């Protein structure tokens, strides 16, 4: 496995930072705005027989967190392959 060049290191890290920030921003909106501050107005909308604000706090936000982590793992793991920095034989 070859060492990364400085440029590659920079690109890799910038990609990671951008992904991290985006996921956190989504998480913030979901947990603190949709399921918190805005929940009352969202409750006017009905979803699967539930008021939407309640549904987001009780179920929707949880599902979104799971998806976010899965996306993070998938994208970062793919990036590692692309840059050739991953452990395969190390057990």
């Amino acid at each position, binding site marked *: 496995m070859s060492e990364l060049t400085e440029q590659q290191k920079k690109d890799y890290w910038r990609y990671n930072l951008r992904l991290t920030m985006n996921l956190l921003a989504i998480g913030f909106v979901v947990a603190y705005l949709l399921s918190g501050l805005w929940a009352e107005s969202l409750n006017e909308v009905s979803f699967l027989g539930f008021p939407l604000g309640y549904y987001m706090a009780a179920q929707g936000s949880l599902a979104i967190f*799971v998806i976010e982590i899965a996306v993070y793992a998938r994208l970062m793991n793919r990036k590692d392959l692309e840059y050739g920095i991953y452990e395969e034989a190390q057990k």
Partner: protein
Amino acid sequence: MNLRKIFTLYTVGFLGVTIILGLAEHFFDLPNRWIGWIFMGLSLGIYIVIGILTRTSDADQYYVAGRGVPAIYNGMATGSDWMSAASFISMAGTLSVQGFSGLAYVMGWTGGYLLLAVFLGPYLRQFGAYTIPDFLGARYGGNAARLVGVFAAILCSFTYLIAQVTGVGLIVSRFIGLDFNVGVFVGLIGVLFCSVLGGMRSVTWTQVAQYIILITSYLVPVVVLSWQLFSNPIPQLAYGKVLQMNNQSALAITRDPQEKATREIWKAEAAAADAKLKDPATPEAEKTKLAAAQKTAATQAKAPAASDDAKVGNYLTVPKGKGMWNFLALTFCLMVGTAGLPHILARYYTTPSVREARTSVGWSLFFIFLLYFTAPAYAAFARFSVFTKLVGQKISDLPSWVTLWKPAGLFDVVDKAGDGIIQFADFVIKSSDFVVLATPEIAGLPFVVTGLIMAGGLAAALSTADGLLLTIANGISHDLYYKVINPKATLLKRLTITKIFLIVTALISAYVATFRLAIIVELVAWAFSLAGSSFFPALVMGIWWKRTNKAGALAGMISGLAVTLFYMIGSRFYGMSWFGTATVASGVFGLPVGFLVTWVVSLLTPAPDRETQDLVISVRYPTSGSAARAINAGH
């Protein structure tokens, strides 16, 4: 045999035993107590066997399971490590009592894994230490940061451990009828067998086995109820309808004349108790009892929450103003606390690679999600069962389970109005834990389902106790003894000391648990604020900012912890209040202080040496091996 085969066979076997017991109950009237004993004996037996099979005295195996736990199994192990007796037994009940506000727990405890996934998990794995204080020691050089880490880890873990041990005692005493104190020590045998014989390795595989039991037992009753009512095996989709039906029942109860009459009687009783309380002639000793009676009567006098429109009503009322601030603050504290609890973080040391660590956080949250996603549905079905199976029955036809549950002190059924009919106001809820524990019987499911719930609750409490116990013992033996007191200690000596501390810690926690201190439950909720304000800033900044130095981290950890503790104690005991913040959310002040102090003090003092800074940079790139080498050289 490979892992998948083993655990598939195990799951099928467990379900098979449950079905056989169900048949035996149906056809041969197998007594309830026997079912309880079989479930407990069988599950404890499995954990002990796993403990013996996976015993080890290799350091890597003992501390981090040889870093060979595949992502999905580490996910299951984290799931049961994480989900405590409180998640399993109390969460659904809390949701049904607290309504919207209770959702802070659901969101905080799951959202924390997002923080863990992007900020900590993969990087800690790349660092490759043995414990969390171990990371602090390596990153910040010297023993000071390590020692503060050990102190904070014990502070967060010990009360949490006592709560688990109490949970074990409660479950065993409720279902088997053993004395609480005996139950505590029976449960400890199951915990100690695993952790003492094989450390992290045994604990990991036991936790996987425990996860399978706990999730099966949580899902079975709700799925069965959902199927009975709607022919829909997915309760999460069906319970919207249940909420609406519950609202209809609640409305009917509000208007029913006989219910009204019963509530009036309670009201009169509450007023009488109140008057007596205010009477100076009442002896002090009687007052506590009177106050409790007054509270019960006042609660019973209230009509169930319902709303006139077809919507689901008060139960869903979003808090406003200070209520909303506390809701958000608590969610925040639980999130950062989750991402800062040492017994959870240490699980990500055990995966074979950084890639697997990332995937593993995803699996962890998925497995936790399965239970949390079900909890609100569980609560709705529990309420539904009470409305439809209990309310309106003749008191003379009271099913036998009501009397059997009475000694457990979860609820009571009294005929207040003396009309021979059970009114909703006659159903006295003493602990919302009844939701998970008693719903199968209220809904008329066979006792074997209740036995299953017992096995699940036991698994939840034991698995968390395992993880916590190991965190405390490793902190003392690895970080305090080996790294600070006697760096020349042989492996044998270190492992022996770990084992001694496992047993000593377990015994102390069992001893404290026998006092049944009421404050324990409260203290557990505090652990999240404490972990969030001590570990989270030091770990995140240590990984993400190479300029963070020892002085900054130390000052940050200590000041974060101090501010949180100050507000906790001040608000709980001395009536202090900053912006009306609740005690459980104290971390909302400590955490920013921790970050700020770490930042400022780091900048005011010299930068860490070149080597440390390179180490921090190298952690960003999996396999740029210097990190793992630098740390492992110390072992």
